[in-house]
């Protein structure tokens, strides 16, 4: 049932440039005990990689490093072949916004004071794209299946699924080259999960963006991604094992 796994060494085959390349990343919240040690991972342009691992193995930390939101203790990040010139606010805006992020809990990832439309428009306004922001917001909302009646509401007035749709729209607002989805669907029901994965895949099909999907649901990630990578135990022997996408024809239709 499960395809055989091979030791992942270096970038997976294929010539094209890497949309995202993480080299020898050591990272964590305490220098003496990093959760990740010497982890490397690369995504080709347009490739979808699923990152699997048990709770606490550091996969969310790796996702934050990839999104330039957490400075690693050691190692380098390359985006589209360019080395990342910093992390968080030290990263140039163009690099930061080249990666779109969706988090696990929409409740924590949404500013409780903003309406859904303000939430979706926030990256547009933050980067000075005020002109056309309203149109783009409506377009994004439509893409994730949010009707105009929901856009005026605040996070506490919508369900988790609706709020996560808005968060996905926000992540797509600046047309990122790489999407990082950290447990995007862990709190969602099956239908909303399938709907949001379809939204992400639709965007990728049109834009050619790469995807790093982090999660613990093997079935989901194997179905969703081109290949899955498993992160083991963080700590001293963070190791990645890679597996290609399960054979085609997983679709039952």
């Amino acid at each position, binding site marked *: 049932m499960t395809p055989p796994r091979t030791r992942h060494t270096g970038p997976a085959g294929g010539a094209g440039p890497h949309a995202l390349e993480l080299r020898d990343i050591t990272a964590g919240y305490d220098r003496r005990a990093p959760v990740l040690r010497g982890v490397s991972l690369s995504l080709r342009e347009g490739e979808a990689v699923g990152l699997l691992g048990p709770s*606490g193995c550091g996969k969310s930390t790796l996702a934050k490093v990839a999104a330039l939101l957490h400075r690693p203790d050691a190692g380098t990040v390359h985006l589209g072949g360019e080395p990342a010139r910093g992390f968080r606010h030290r990263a140039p805006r163009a690099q930061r916004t080249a990666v779109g992020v969706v988090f696990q809990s929409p409740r924590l990832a949404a500013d409780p004071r903003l309406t859904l439309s303000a939430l979706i428009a926030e990256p547009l306004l933050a980067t000075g794209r005020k002109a056309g922001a309203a149109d783009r917001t409506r377009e994004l909302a439509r893409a994730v299946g949010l009707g105009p009646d929901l856009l005026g509401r605040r996070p506490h007035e919508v369900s988790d699924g609706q709020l996560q749709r808005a968060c996905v729209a926000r992540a797509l607002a600046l047309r990122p080259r790489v999407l990082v989805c950290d447990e995007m669907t862990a709190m969602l029901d099956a239908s*909303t999960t399938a709907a949001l994965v379809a939204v992400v895949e639709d965007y990728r099909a049109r834009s050619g963006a790469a995807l790093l999907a982090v999660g613990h649901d093997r*079935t989901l990630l194997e179905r969703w991604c081109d290949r899955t990578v498993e992160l083991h135990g963080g700590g001293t022997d963070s190791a990645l094992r890679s597996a290609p996408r399960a054979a085609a024809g997983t679709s039952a239709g």
Partner: protein
Amino acid sequence: MSADTLTPETVAGPPAAAHPLLSVRELTVRFRMRGGREVAAVTDVGLDLAPGECLALVGESGCGKSVLASALLGLLPGNAHVSGSAVLRGPGEADGLDLLTADEATLARTVRGRRVGLVPQSPAAHLTPVRTVRSQLAETVRELTGARGEELRAATLTAAGRAAFPADHLDRYPHQLSGGLAQRAATALALVGDAPLLLADEPTTGLDRDLVDRTVDELRAHTDEGRGLLIITHDLAAAERVADRVAVMYAGRIVELAPAPDFFGTPGPRHPYARGLLEALPERSFTPIPGMPPELGDLPAGCAFAPRCDRAADVCATVPQLTGGVACHRPLTAAAGEGPAARREGSRV
């Protein structure tokens, strides 16, 4: 609606359903909102739960399933209006206790923890961060059993053991526990009172697959000891693993109530919504149900699922009643479906 059509055992009664531990009839919860708006969070829910049986209540977030759990525990806020009945019956008890009409003092003193154990959604938040697991467990044991001194120490250890919480972790604080151990600590607290009914509200949210499996297996083991387990979850895989019967909730109503093997295997779900939900799983066709669930404050007339349903017809303008385990005017039959069981087995080929 008459209670007869609601009675689940006519559909899918397990052997013991003749003496249900919990019988819920015509449970309806309305929230009065500012501006006179009314939110129909739960409508006309009826279900039975027998000792040793696990019923999984599944549905999307916002379908009313957590409100149902809160109603059973008497934890609804002041603007909620509850009607119907939810009778909790001990063995050999003729009348039982209606959880919906019981006063707060009764619920606090004799029901919560003693007759209904709650396994919480987020164990980390359920445990007090500034006290060790041992002290919290001991407090609950003392509160519920009156044990003191050496007896209390022993009872605390037993209580931890019952939820497979390792004794050498008892002196840790909640933040020092992994997600799985925190879940076990919370389960241990829920089990202290030896309550015959366990209510688990999304007990696996945020846990990884292995932990989900272990958590539900442990809950199943407690069920097999003769407790009734009502598990509320959006995780269909977890429901399949643990449940004897499945109740699917949509827009505040139970739209399908079926034995788990029938639901997940052959003939499969008969309500189009339940079918769609199951088909959305990545191991099946991975296609979402079009649209989004309706607002509970603004439900369409008639069947709430009709606007999203490809089988909808004129008859769907009236609200279908739950008969024969499904609340649908045009339910799917096994023949009409595309053989979900076969597909499931072959999904990885």
